[in-house]
């Protein structure tokens, strides 16, 4: 049975799940009266699929991200100038008791990596963010207290501009540990983060820190914010789910003449070609690469 991210919220975990590939969750206006129906339309409301009711909105017309549906993939896109979405105030996601997870499939297209945050600039509260505000094009999963910047738990990953990124940020309060994995590259850090401030109630923002205080351009294919640190299996399942949102998957059978066992494939720009044998990924090619695959054993079909 296909994995359903709703399982991450089955025990009443706080958070949100945003899924632009499910067009029934998208509306052009913030009141939810005009559904999104086609590529290029504004998104004024995106429903939360976690069951927590943390729907994200933008009431100002010019500040609404754009729904894109191209070649079988769907995402929402922000211009980095004024576009963002935010929820109503939500009780603090990163709590001492449960930690938190931020998992998302995104593409950054500007000088600042795609921002997802819950942030309070005025109080000594617990914030989280997906981006370093000092190294804008770098993903950084941080959980911190605003008024004492020495008590951060930060893990960073080099920037991935103009390519799709699978971001997994995990925070564990028990050992003051933050972990960030971007496209399989892992980093972590530890620090004695103060336990105060976990009662923050603030908006969750997409493409923004602090409701437009900082903005980022790019694509969001899917975002899962969970008030619980996730298990290895949950991370694996969710990363596979998120990856599928960024890749057009199709299958094909290629007949090969075993007496002349060669064939070639032209992978046009942006197309990735995968070859699986017995469930194992053998070859991946992309970006204008001409590939030739030849059987090593003519008795064994490709």
């Amino acid at each position, binding site marked *: 049975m296909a994995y359903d991210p709703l399982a991450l919220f089955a025990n009443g975990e706080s958070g949100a799940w945003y899924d632009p590939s499910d067009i029934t969750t998208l509306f052009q*206006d*913030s009141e939810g009266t005009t559904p999104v129906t086609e590529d*290029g339309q*504004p998104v004024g409301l995106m429903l939360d699929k976690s069951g927590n009711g943390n729907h994200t909105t933008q*009431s*100002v*017309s*010019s*500040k*609404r991200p*754009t729904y894109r549906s191209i070649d079988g993939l769907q995402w929402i896109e922000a*211009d*980095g*100038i*004024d*576009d963002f979405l935010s929820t109503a105030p939500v009780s603090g996601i990163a709590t001492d008791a449960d930690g938190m997870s931020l998992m998302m499939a995104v593409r950054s297209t*500007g000088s600042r990596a795609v921002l997802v945050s819950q*942030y309070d*600039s005025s109080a000594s509260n617990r914030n989280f963010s997906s981006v370093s*505000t*000092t190294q804008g094009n770098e993903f950084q999963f941080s959980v911190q207290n*605003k008024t004492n*910047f020495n008590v951060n738990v930060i893990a960073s990953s080099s920037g991935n501009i103009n390519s799709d990124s699978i971001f997994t940020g995990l925070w564990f309060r028990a050992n003051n540990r933050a972990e960030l994995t971007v496209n399989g590259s892992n980093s972590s850090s530890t620090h004695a983060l103060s336990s105060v401030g976990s009662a923050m109630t603030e908006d969750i923002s997409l493409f923004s*820190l*602090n409701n*437009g*205080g*900082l903005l980022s*351009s790019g694509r969001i294919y899917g975002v899962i914010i969970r008030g619980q640190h996730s298990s290895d299996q949950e991370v694996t399942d969710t990363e596979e789910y998120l990856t599928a949102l960024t890749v057009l998957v199709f299958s094909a059978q290629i007949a090969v003449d075993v007496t002349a066992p060669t064939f070639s494939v032209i992978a046009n720009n942006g197309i990735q070609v995968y070859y699986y044998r017995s469930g194992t990924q053998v070859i991946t090619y992309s970006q204008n690469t001409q590939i030739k695959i030849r059987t090593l054993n003519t008795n064994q079909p490709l």
Partner: protein
Amino acid sequence: MRITVACPQQLQSDSNQLAMCLALSVADVDTYKDLSWQDADGNLYAVASFPTTDAWIHFAQNPLNRPAWDIDSVIDMDAVARAQNDLVFSDTAIEAVPNKLTACLGDNGLDVLLNMGLFAIPSSEEGI
């Protein structure tokens, strides 16, 4: 087609009235909210960028009536007229000036703003 608009500080109030008149609700009074961009002389601007159509551009440059949604007469139509008089459209990025509401076409809004001679002012959240 995308349009990017630079609203100078002195035209902010009137421009937000125009934004409401061209858009969908009273919430659009916050279209030009944050003066977070500046030109080389230090003049401040609020900016907006959004997909548009030829029909919308034509609509924005012709006499406007109070929109049907504004049953409470929230919009100051005199301010709308003043903002329209200050509105300049261009098919390419042109220099933003502090006495015009400058609207330029271009697929990448950030590039358009750069070519309009505007620079983002670092936010108070930068560097935390």
